[in-house]
């Protein structure tokens, strides 16, 4: 016995109502548990009356007894002697039958609230019986309708029930199912009161075109007792058919849906009736609305789209939306991604800045190297001019003086003339020393022969020249085949030769550009010429004015029109061409430009080059 009334000592002045909830089955049956949940929840709200609530779970079917058992009633009456009840709540038809059969044993004033599974109970003509009616046949009808609606392939409706606990209800449901199934053109397969083994075998053999409507199954042929909801779970697992249940307690056990009565709702209704005695008399029958309950998981298993469900269906066990379930993880993940993204971006920007800085540094280095070369050449030129200027000036002076001496006086002073001649000789020697010094300086460059790719030479020279040309606003065109045979030589020297030619062209363009305002362009071209690679550098710098300089002259050292140069550009190239057994060719287009072509023979073998060099 369970009392859920408030403590007596606190509320002695309140009117007392004593309630007995009686159930013919066990207290752990889900249907009963849910009923009690609803009852307690509603009951807790009631105030103004002191209640004493007792529950009796008779467990008749488990004990192998039935509702006609007199001993149980005798025992109950004995137990509650001296405890008059104001209200007795009967949770099922069977319980009501049991109660009414012994109606005389109770105080006639005792009110009975009966939860029934049939629209009307023939026995409920007792004026003290108030009925909470759950229209099971109607629910069965709606179940079949629902099944045929959500399963378009449906051919058959099977019905699983045991009639022993609620024979009338089961029969009424069966009738209604059959009628409905036939009405909409479905086959009807009653599986009522079958031994459990046979039932399972039959169910396992069914296809998904059969909807199984499950009412209950409590005891098998060997007297084993089952909780209907738990057995349902096993049956669902074994069968390919979609199951439909007729109670809220069946939801979550594997049924697709159930048109059933919420037992919690029934519990709440019962509690309301108990707490207001007046309503019991006024409303002898109170109908509980059936609900369409759907198990989302099973829906998904049978691939039933949600839009087939009727609008009033309540979907249970809907798996939480991905976002709802994992919002924290998702947020954290996205945040991580964003942070990582920002980090990556930052790193990328830093990397780019570094690359750019390195590029700038390398450009500056190139420029510096170039400036260094230029200033070195300039210094060399100045030194040369000064060093050679002295002796040459002296020689010139002496020659002129000697000439004057001889002109003024034919019998010139021989001593004076001798002095002059010896001075000239000394100065010539000085000049020669200067030249020897410079020669030794230039000779320090070593000449290393190896097999080299002429294309690479052109590419490297173009890269090196790019900085200066870009600054000067001169475009550089490289016209180069994908590959040429290798040549034998010193790649550094050849590069220097090309750079000298490019520099010459750039200078010519710089000078011409001021005059004509033309866009400067230099073309480096690599071609095969007989058995040689021909490197040519062309410009649009106006060419050489042959009236002031002959083409032979420009190949001589120290011929320059510039103040900062020493006129070594072309002579050095000529020397390099010679060192490579090649040739240097000038093609002057006065008023347009100059093309200088340097040819270097292809490498036959390193051996042959050496031989050739020895001969020459």
């Amino acid at each position, binding site marked *: 016995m369970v009392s859920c009334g408030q403590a007596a000592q606190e509320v002695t002045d309140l009117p007392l109502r004593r309630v007995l909830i009686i159930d013919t089955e066990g207290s752990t049956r889900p249907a009963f548990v849910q009923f009690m949940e609803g009852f307690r929840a509603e009951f807790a709200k009631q105030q103004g009356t002191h209640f004493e609530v007792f529950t009796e779970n008779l467990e008749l079917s488990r004990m192998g007894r039935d509702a006609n058992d007199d001993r149980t009633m005798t025992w109950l009456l004995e137990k509650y002697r001296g405890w008059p009840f104001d209200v007795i709540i009967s949770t099922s038809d069977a319980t009501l039958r049991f109660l009414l059969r012994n109606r005389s044993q109770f105080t006639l004033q005792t009110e009975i609230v009966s939860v029934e599974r049939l629209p009307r109970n023939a026995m409920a003509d007792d004026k003290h019986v108030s009925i909470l009616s759950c229209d099971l046949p109607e629910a069965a009808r709606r179940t079949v309708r629902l099944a045929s609606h959500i399963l378009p392939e449906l051919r058959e409706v099977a019905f699983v029930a045991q009639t022993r606990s609620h024979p009338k209800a089961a029969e009424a449901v069966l009738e209604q199912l059959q009628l409905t199934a036939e009405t909409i053109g479905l086959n009807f397969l009653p599986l009522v009161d079958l031994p459990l083994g046979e039932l399972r075998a039959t169910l396992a053999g069914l296809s998904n075109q059969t909807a199984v409507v499950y009412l209950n199954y409590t005891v098998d042929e060997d007297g084993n007792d089952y909780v209907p909801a738990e057995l349902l779970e096993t049956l669902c697992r074994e069968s390919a058919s979609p199951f439909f249940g007729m109670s809220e307690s069946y939801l979550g056990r594997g049924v697709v849906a159930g048109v059933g009565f919420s037992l919690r709702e029934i519990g709440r209704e019962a509690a309301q009736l108990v707490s207001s005695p007046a309503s019991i008399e006024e409303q002898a029958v109170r109908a509980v609305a059936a609900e369409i309950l759907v198990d989302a998981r099973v829906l998904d298993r049978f691939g039933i789209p949600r839009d087939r469900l009727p609008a009033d269906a309540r979907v249970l066990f809907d798996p939480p939306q991905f976002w709802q379930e994992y919002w924290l993880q998702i947020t954290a993940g996205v945040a991580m991604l964003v942070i990582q993204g920002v980090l990556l971006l930052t790193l990328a920007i830093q990397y780019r800045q570094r690359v750019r800085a390195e590029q700038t540094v390398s450009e500056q280095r190139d420029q510096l190297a170039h400036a260094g070369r230029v200033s070195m050449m300039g210094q060399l030129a100045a030194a040369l001019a000064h*060093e050679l*200027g002295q002796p040459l000036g002296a020689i*010139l002076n002496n020659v*002129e003086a000697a000439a004057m001496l001889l002109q003024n006086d034919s019998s010139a002073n021989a001593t004076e003339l001798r002095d002059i001649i010896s001075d000239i000789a000394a100065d010539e020697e000085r000049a020669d020393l200067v030249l020897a010094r410079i020669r030794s300086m230039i000779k320090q460059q070593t000449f290393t022969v190896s097999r080299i790719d002429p294309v690479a030479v052109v590419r490297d020279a173009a890269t090196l020249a790019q900085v200066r040309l870009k600054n000067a606003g001169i475009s550089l065109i490289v016209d180069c085949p994908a590959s040429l045979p290798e040549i034998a030589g010193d790649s550094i020297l050849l590069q220097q030769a090309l750079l000298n030619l490019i520099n010459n062209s750039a200078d010519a363009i710089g000078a011409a550009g001021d005059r004509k305002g033309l866009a400067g362009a230099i073309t480096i071209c690599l071609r095969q010429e007989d058995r040689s690679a021909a490197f040519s550098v062309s410009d649009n710098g106006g060419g050489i004015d042959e009236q002031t300089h002959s083409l032979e002259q420009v190949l001589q050292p120290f011929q320059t029109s510039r103040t900062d140069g020493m006129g070594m550009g072309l002579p050095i190239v000529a020397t390099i061409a010679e060192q490579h057994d090649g040739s240097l060719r000038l093609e002057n287009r006065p008023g347009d430009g100059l093309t200088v072509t340097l040819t270097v023979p292809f490498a036959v073998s390193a051996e042959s080059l050496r031989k050739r060099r020895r001969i020459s």
Partner: protein
Amino acid sequence: MTKTVHVVDDDDSFLRSMGRRLRGHGYTVETYPSVADFLLRSDPEAPGCVLTDLQMPQRDGFELQDRLTESSNPLPVVFVTGKGDIRTSVRAIKAGAEDFLTKRVSTDELLMAVERALARCDQERIIRRQQQEARAKIAALPPREKQMLLGIVRGVPIRDYAEELGVAERTVKHYRTLLTRELGLTAAVDLARLVQDAGFTVEQLAEMTEE
């Protein structure tokens, strides 16, 4: 008076040969191996010109030119250089060099440069002599006449000046005639030119009268 061409160069061979070359063309030549030697030995009053190397150890050609400009008898300077870059030549010409030659100079260029320098030397000497003479004449005037001269060259109307000195206009006119005659001039307007030739400003002249 013979004009001397002074050649300054630290390169012994070049110095000697240049001396020979110029002598061959009939010039009187003095050679100096350094600027210091030139400053020590050359006659500051003698006419002529200087042919100097630009780059020399210790004092270079520019320094020599500076020293000459400061002296009472600046000789025209012709630079001779082994380098001949634009910057140096511009600097030299700006500093008042007569010419700028390279060491390997042709005879024509050399002679033209020397002749030009010597001509300029003559010209400058004439101007300087005139100046000195004018100065001497003015300096020799008695104070009263100097005062009158100042008034005349100042360009103030005679009447105003006479009033300023508290003398008759006629007196001023008399002094003007006297001064013109004493200074050996033909017209009164030449008085102003004389003061100009002397290189005196009105203020300098005023200072002299106050002495």
